[in-house]
């Protein structure tokens, strides 16, 4: 379709630096990126855990008690601590990312991303309180 630029007429001996397996340790930002991506393991695991929890509720009080005991075991607590940290990390990295997919205008001015992120954070707080309220109402 479009116009080509001529390839070199003699092959150049180009140097290509190999990428190390540890590339993600090269810059702090890369490391943070990898951590952010790995939070998804906990997200997936917790989704499945919730499925199991629902199933336990369906199976009756004993089944649910067993499930709750499992969560209270040291392993269960350990998992929850990690999962909680991962989930929060996911949340605080997610909203700034979402902001980039939204163009909002008020009059001629574009709403700054930080405002959109802030609104998400506020929404997060509200939603959390509502969920907690409903769960705890019983």
């Amino acid at each position, binding site marked *: *379709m*479009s*116009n080509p*630029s001529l*390839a070199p007429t003699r092959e*150049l*001996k*180009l*140097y*290509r*630096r190999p*990428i190390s397996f540890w*590339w*993600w340790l*090269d*810059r702090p*930002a*890369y490391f943070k*990126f990898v951590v952010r*991506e790995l939070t998804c393991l906990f997200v997936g695991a917790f989704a499945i855990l919730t499925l199991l929890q629902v199933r336990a509720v369906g199976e009756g009080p004993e089944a649910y008690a067993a499930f709750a005991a499992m969560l209270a075991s040291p392993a269960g607590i350990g998992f929850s601590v990690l999962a909680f940290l991962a989930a929060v990390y996911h949340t605080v990295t997610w909203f700034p*990312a979402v902001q*980039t*997919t*939204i*163009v909002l*205008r008020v009059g*001629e001015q*574009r709403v700054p991303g930080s405002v959109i992120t802030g609104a998400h954070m506020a929404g997060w707080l509200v939603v959390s309180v509502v969920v907690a309220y409903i769960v705890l109402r019983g």
Partner: protein
Amino acid sequence: MAETIRLEVSRYRPEVESEPTLQSYEVPYNKDWVILDALNYVKNQIDGSVTFRWSCRMGVCGSCGMMANGEPKLTCAVPLTDYDPTQPIRIEPLQFFPVVRDLVIDMSSFLEKLSNVKPWIIRDDVEATEAVEFRQTPVELDAYKQFSMCINCMICYSACPVIGLEPEFTGPAAIALAQRYNLDSRDKGKEERMDALDAHEGLWGCTFVGECTKVCPKNVDPAGAIQLYKMGSATDYLKSMLLPWGTK
């Protein structure tokens, strides 16, 4: 003697060596200089064989991108005073690109990628027939203006790990430029551009590392452009699924 600073310059002479080595030069620590001035001092006064690209010296031609202490920088826009004179500054070619010579990278792949995303106005009547401009309000201009500021300096490419891992990835600047045209009220080529970009090497290879935006010297925000692009494509997809009769 006046204060000096050491530059450790990556040298690669393909005729005589198989991989780059660092060579040290002592240059004046001139408070009015940018890194590029220091390199030119080396070239003019010490070693005429040190090779790098530059032209405008005012941050607009996009030629002088290099790694300085591991960070991709537009060397004509970074003052020497950003660095501590007691420590050397390591100058290397932009990473993730094949090196032709010393600090010169091979960026031909970018030009190919750029052509592939069709960075021009697509509509039937672009050729001027009469002297009347297409109308475009300031708000419509603002919708794409930021993404049109790209100087093709390749700094974002050398910050994006996906480029390192998958060199075929279209990459931040080229996608941002495609999006620049998509968002231009005069353009009707979104569909055509999507043909090239709806692929793993196109849009979807980007995993939103976001470094491209952080290092961009011209505030182009390529990461944002790509995110918007994905969002647009996903909404179009959903629309066409939910309202198969409603898409134009």
